[in-house]
């Protein structure tokens, strides 16, 4: 598996391979083909970030541009899923959930339960999250916690090209609705990715680095930040175990709890704002079920409780960095009751 491709290419390849394998897979969203009705190339964009680039050429009937009406087309993806298709709809930015959330959380998420187990809704909603592109308050949020709060949804947050491909393939094959969260600042990140198709099971965290002193659970793009901090701390003699949950729902609580059992300390790193969030969720899990092994307060390294600022000077302070993670780890290690 020596081939290195980008996070963007990994997702594109997953989509392409699944579309070849299963003709029920359809892709829809604003400019995911590239400008329906416009002159010039019919596949000019492949989505605003080029993630679906080239798919329209190969599957012209199954890659559908849409008008700007997220409720209608996300709802359409959901409706189609109840009738045998396996749609992958693009909600361009996760920040736009507010114009279509009903279809996701009251319809897709609840069909199976409300209908007494007699429905399956295998829809994937791909969406971009995260700060770092100076895209300001309405295009930079990390809102996956909101989806994780909702029973009936699954939430994937891949942190590498390898995971992005494997989790996307699993998402498409999964019979439940999946929110697939892609970090917009990672599209050009490269990594080794097998050419063959493979699915990564949901609910299986990865220990991306082993360590005995502190467990750091990091989400999405924060995994690489946590790794950086870990390397730095290793020089100071502190060995950090970095755990990437990969999916927030289902959450692999066993791996997290076992890790904390070994280290006695937990730091959660999450790019989202800090109230009622994935960071609090993982903290609460361990405070409840891993209390016996805890030797220090559970630290959280998160964005502040503010919207995402525009200016690069502020945004760089907004997003958790390795230094802040390292400080939190040191606080945990240095704690005396």
């Amino acid at each position, binding site marked *: 598996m020596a081939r290195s491709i980008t996070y963007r290419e990994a997702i594109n390849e997953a989509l392409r391979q699944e579309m070849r394998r299963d003709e029920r897979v359809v892709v829809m969203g604003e400019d995911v083909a590239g400008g329906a009705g416009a002159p010039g190339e019919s596949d000019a964009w492949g989505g605003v970030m080029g993630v679906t680039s080239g798919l329209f050429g190969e599957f012209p009937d199954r890659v*559908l541009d849409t008008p700007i009406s997220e409720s209608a087309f996300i709802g359409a993806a959901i409706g189609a899923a*109840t009738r045998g298709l396996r749609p992958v709809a693009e909600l361009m930015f996760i920040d736009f959930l507010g114009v279509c959330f009903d279809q996701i959380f009251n319809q897709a998420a609840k069909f199976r339960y409300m209908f*007494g*187990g007699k429905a399956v809704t295998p829809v994937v909603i791909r969406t971009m999250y995260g700060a770092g592109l100076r895209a300001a308050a309405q295009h930079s949020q990390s809102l996956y916690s909101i989806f994780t709060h909702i029973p009936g949804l699954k939430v994937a947050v891949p942190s590498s090209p390898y995971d992005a491909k494997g989790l996307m393939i699993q998402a498409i094959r999964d019979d439940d609705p999946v929110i697939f969260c892609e970090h917009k600042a990672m599209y050009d990140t490269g990594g080794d990715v097998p050419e063959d198709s493979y699915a990564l099971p949901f609910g299986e965290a990865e220990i991306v680095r082993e360590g005995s002193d502190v467990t750091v659970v990091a989400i999405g793009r924060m995994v690489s930040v946590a790794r950086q901090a870990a390397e730095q701390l290793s020089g100071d003699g502190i060995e950090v175990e970095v755990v990437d949950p990969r999916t927030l729902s289902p959450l692999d609580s066993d791996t997290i709890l076992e890790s904390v059992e070994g280290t006695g300390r937990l730091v959660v790193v999450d790019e989202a704002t800090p109230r009622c969030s994935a960071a609090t969720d993982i903290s609460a899990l361990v405070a409840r079920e891993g209390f016996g092994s805890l030797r220090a307060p559970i630290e959280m390294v998160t964005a502040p409780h503010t919207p995402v600022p525009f200016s690069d000077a502020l945004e760089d302070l907004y997003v958790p960095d390795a230094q802040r993670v390292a400080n939190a780890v040191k606080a945990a290690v240095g704690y005396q009751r």
Partner: protein
Amino acid sequence: MTDTITEAAELGAAELVEVYRSMRTIRVFEERVHAEFATGDIPGFVHLYAGEEASAVGVCAHLDDRDSIASTHRGHGHCIAKGVDVKAMMAEIFGRRSGACNGKGGSMHIADLSKGMLGANGIVGGGPPLICGTALAGKLAGNGAVSVAFFGDGASNQGTTLEAMNLASVWNLPAVFVAENNGYAEATASTWSVAADNIADRAAGFGMPGVIVDGFDFFAVHEAAGEAVARAREGGGPTLIEVKLTRYYGHFEGDQQTYRGDEVARARERTDCLARFRARVCESGQVAAAELDRVDGEVAALVDEAVTEARAAAKPTEADLHTDVYVAY
């Protein structure tokens, strides 16, 4: 209003009887739910469809199991017209494990995907986006399947409904949008809330034909729906049909209806869809009155049994609480 003379002739006697059975079942079902609700044994929010039967049945008479419909909070009529099991519905409304949704959904969420019934819906405007998807599935499958969204006058002001109409046209979907204008959204008059003379006037803005029909006249609905469904099946794209009608009960069970005049009494006396249907097919000699009487008896018996069985049925238990959330988690 559509001229209905030709259309009436198109349905044979057997079909007319089945159409009558469906409308009659809805009426009797709803009147019975009304009565049972008054006993206090039916939990939750219940919205009755009585009075509007010609709409659900006039449209669904053109559909089969490959076709999909999305419904509303006022969904019992659409369910029955689309062939959902009446006993399973009643058991669901009583919250029993034998219900259509194992007692987990209740009146507002009755569904049967095997019949193409995508569910009643607690969210006003929830259904129209969904049927764009089922219509797309039909279109890609090339199986001629058509999808229909039923929604109210109130829902015609919801953005989700309006977006869905545009999307259906843009994608040229085999879809029909049926706006059931019963004059009110809760207590609010549609003459006030809909800033157009007719809901059907909105069709032009979304590139589709808009038709107005008299919802007390089964044949008018049936004809308009027939044209729309046929056009959709042939790849001709979506249609908006506005059906003007009246609900016989309050917005939900318990509603005192202080905001309302005597239109229900008038409709029941002069324009009731069942009475008109019966008069028409019997007077023209197409169906014998005795045959419809027989149907009345069968329907009464069915609904009776449905209530008896529902009351006797067991409720779900703790083991059911956590199941059916995910296919696999």
